[in-house]
């Protein structure tokens, strides 16, 4: 579903991401973790085609995001941590807008269940300015899920959601993955990552310091055996390992 090879993104002399490679197969959920400034959001933006990598390749559902961007983007949904919504479009109009962009012919039958699932059923005519932060996040999620993407990229998906919303979001991600969607989930909530993700990619200063299942990562770092994920994370991402 997702194949990333030697991804590098430079801003002048500064390397935000350096030589990162990983794969996400259908049904897999990859957890992307790292401290602030590690390059997570830059990596996700390269995957979504928002920014061009300086070098390396990104393939989404078999399409190179740079050489063949339209089919690649049609297969994916990117849900950022901060919902980007249009102030002047209502909830329903956002979904109709997305439906046209992605060619969702049966939008009529999808809107109702999707909004009910996200508890936005009674907000159909509301503008984003009339919605709470959590509701706006739910609308952004609804826009991402409407076209049933085969690749789902989530950047801090639980930001702003209430406990019930968080539970529902976890269930949604799991359900999508079980139906064959490849998911990348970036989050600082390590318990969420531990609960949902089948694989982990740990970034530090733009570089991958660990990649694989938690078992594989611990096997590669025997000193981390029997430690919690939080301790594993802190050890792997410490700029001065002696300090941990």
């Amino acid at each position, binding site marked *: 579903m997702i194949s990333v090879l030697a991804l590098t993104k430079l*801003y002048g002399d500064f390397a935000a991401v350096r030589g990162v490679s990983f794969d996400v197969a259908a049904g897999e959920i990859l957890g992307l973790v790292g401290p602030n400034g590690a390059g997570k959001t830059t990596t996700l933006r390269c995957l979504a085609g928002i920014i061009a990598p300086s070098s390396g390749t990104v393939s989404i559902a078999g399409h190179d995001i740079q050489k063949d961007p339209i089919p690649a983007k*049609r297969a994916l949904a990117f849900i950022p941590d901060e919902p980007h919504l249009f102030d002047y479009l209502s909830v329903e109009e956002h979904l*109709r*807008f997305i439906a046209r962009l992605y060619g969702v012919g*049966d939008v*009529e039958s999808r809107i109702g269940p999707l909004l009910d699932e996200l508890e936005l059923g009674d907000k159909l005519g509301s503008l984003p300015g009339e919605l709470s932060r959590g509701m706006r996040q739910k609308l952004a999620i609804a826009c991402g899920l409407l076209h049933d993407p085969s690749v789902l990229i989530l950047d801090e998906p639980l930001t702003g959601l209430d406990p019930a919303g968080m539970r529902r979001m976890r269930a949604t991600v799991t359900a999508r993955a079980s139906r064959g969607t490849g998911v990348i989930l970036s989050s600082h909530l390590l318990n969420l990552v531990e609960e949902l993700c089948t694989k982990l990619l740990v970034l530090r200063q733009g570089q991958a310091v660990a990649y694989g299942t938690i078992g594989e990562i611990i096997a590669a770092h025997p000193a981390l055996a029997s430690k919690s994920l939080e301790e594993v994370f802190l050890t792997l991402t410490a700029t001065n390992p002696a300090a941990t």
Partner: protein
Amino acid sequence: MNALLYLSWNSARNRFLSAFRRVRSPRYAVAVIVGALYLWGFLWRPVTYPGATNFLLSQPSEMLITLLAVLTLAGPWVFGSDTTALAFTQAEVSMLFPAPITRRGLIGHKLFRAQMAVLINAAIWVFVLRRGGTFLPSPLRAVGVWVLFSTLNLHRLGAALVQSSIKQHGRAAAKRNWWSIVLFGFVGAALVTGFVVSRQELLGASGIGDFFVAVAHVLAQPPASIGLWPFHLVVAPTFARSIPQWQHAIVPAMAVMGLHVFWVLRSDAAFEDAALEASEERARRMDAIRSRRSIVVPKSAVAAKTTLRLKALGHPAMAIFWKNILCLRRTAQFRLLIGPAGMAIAFGAAMSSGARDFSLWVTATATTFAALLIVFGGRLVRNDLRHDMLHLPLLKSVPVGSTDIVLAEVASATVPIAAIQLAVLLIAYVASFGTERITLLPSTRLAILAGSPFLVLALNGALITIQNGMAILFPAWIRLGAAVSTGVEALGQNVLAMVANLFTLLVALIPPTVLAALTFQLAGGLRAERGLLVLWLPMVVAAVVLGLETYAAMLWLGRAFTRAEPLQTA
């Protein structure tokens, strides 16, 4: 240093340094060189014939500018105030509103920040006006322009505060501000009486120049001059023709400015008093105010009661066009059309004054309005990339080609402007048959009407593409968002930007003009019997050539859009 002063100073300094650092990018470096040459040509280049500036500084201009100032100041009272006059940034709302700062302190901060724009624009106008053959030194003229712009800015702020107060406290606030309502009522009555009394003089004018001189004359005589007196006090130092004249004018002008400062602060105090009287209401309102980043009560969000149909299947770029048309419907500020409409009406009156011909007036007004929309349309309608670059991450993640996105965005602004222009041109066409002063053959008029859709779309498309191109290429230097800066304090910058856009359009018009002229010759020149084709064909040829140029520019901008990154718009 005061915390708010510290904030203003460091924000301005860091913004300038940040913009300046962009010059390290080749694209921005080229822009700086071109911009510097442009500024030199527009502002500093020595001019042998200062006639235009002398006209700008003439006595008729002084009276017309005074009238324009009155109309500008009356706008908020007649059509409602512009809440952006008091808008704060999200960061200011987050950090200043909860901080122990008085409301007056916040307004003072707003006033101080506005001064930066006022000073920049005052400097621009001083450079523009310095070419005039007058004996007034530039620093003195600068003070005059600064007083004028500052007073207008203060008035806009005061009007927003007063109207906010009226909206919140109804009749009680209106009672406190009765004098401003009476003042503008008196000014309006004086002007109307002046024009009615002197209507023979206006109707007798035999040309455009004569008409405007007659208008200025009416404004300089009682009763209009009595109504304009306080406003003329503010305008007078800018138009002073000698140092003694300036010295005589500056003190009253500064006094008017001082009165405005007092008025703005008094409005604020009145607000606080009234707010205390209705504390529950105030709390509710302040919540609304804070959530919407303004210290005035904003208009309620335009409800999405009506929508436009959008089929789920079809070219995806249509979705962007649909979205932007909805944006225009829900955010359009029709009062921005009042300026061009007023100019068109005045020009139409000037054209038809000697003839006393209503049909001629309608034809001239409608044609002028259509022409002015080419110049101002792109500034008034911004539902394109100048707005959507703020949503760059979303636009870049959707499965639509970059060129298609640029095309849809440009069309979003071009089509509505062209639709208005074509409607008024149709009115002009029909009205032209009611006057004998227009001697064009019916076939010629029909040819112009039939060719105008092509030309209007091509001209607007080219100009909107130029403006969108600026947003794609220089997002860090362009004001992004739906809001257009309408205050007089931004007048200089707006004029500079508009002239630059028009100059670029003029360059783009060279190939279409040459080819249209060739087509005109090949089609038979001025032979009357072939008038329809002779005019229509060159218009279409010009439109097609300009359209092709615009499309080539869009392809190039599409590639630039592909490379654009969200960081550039931060």
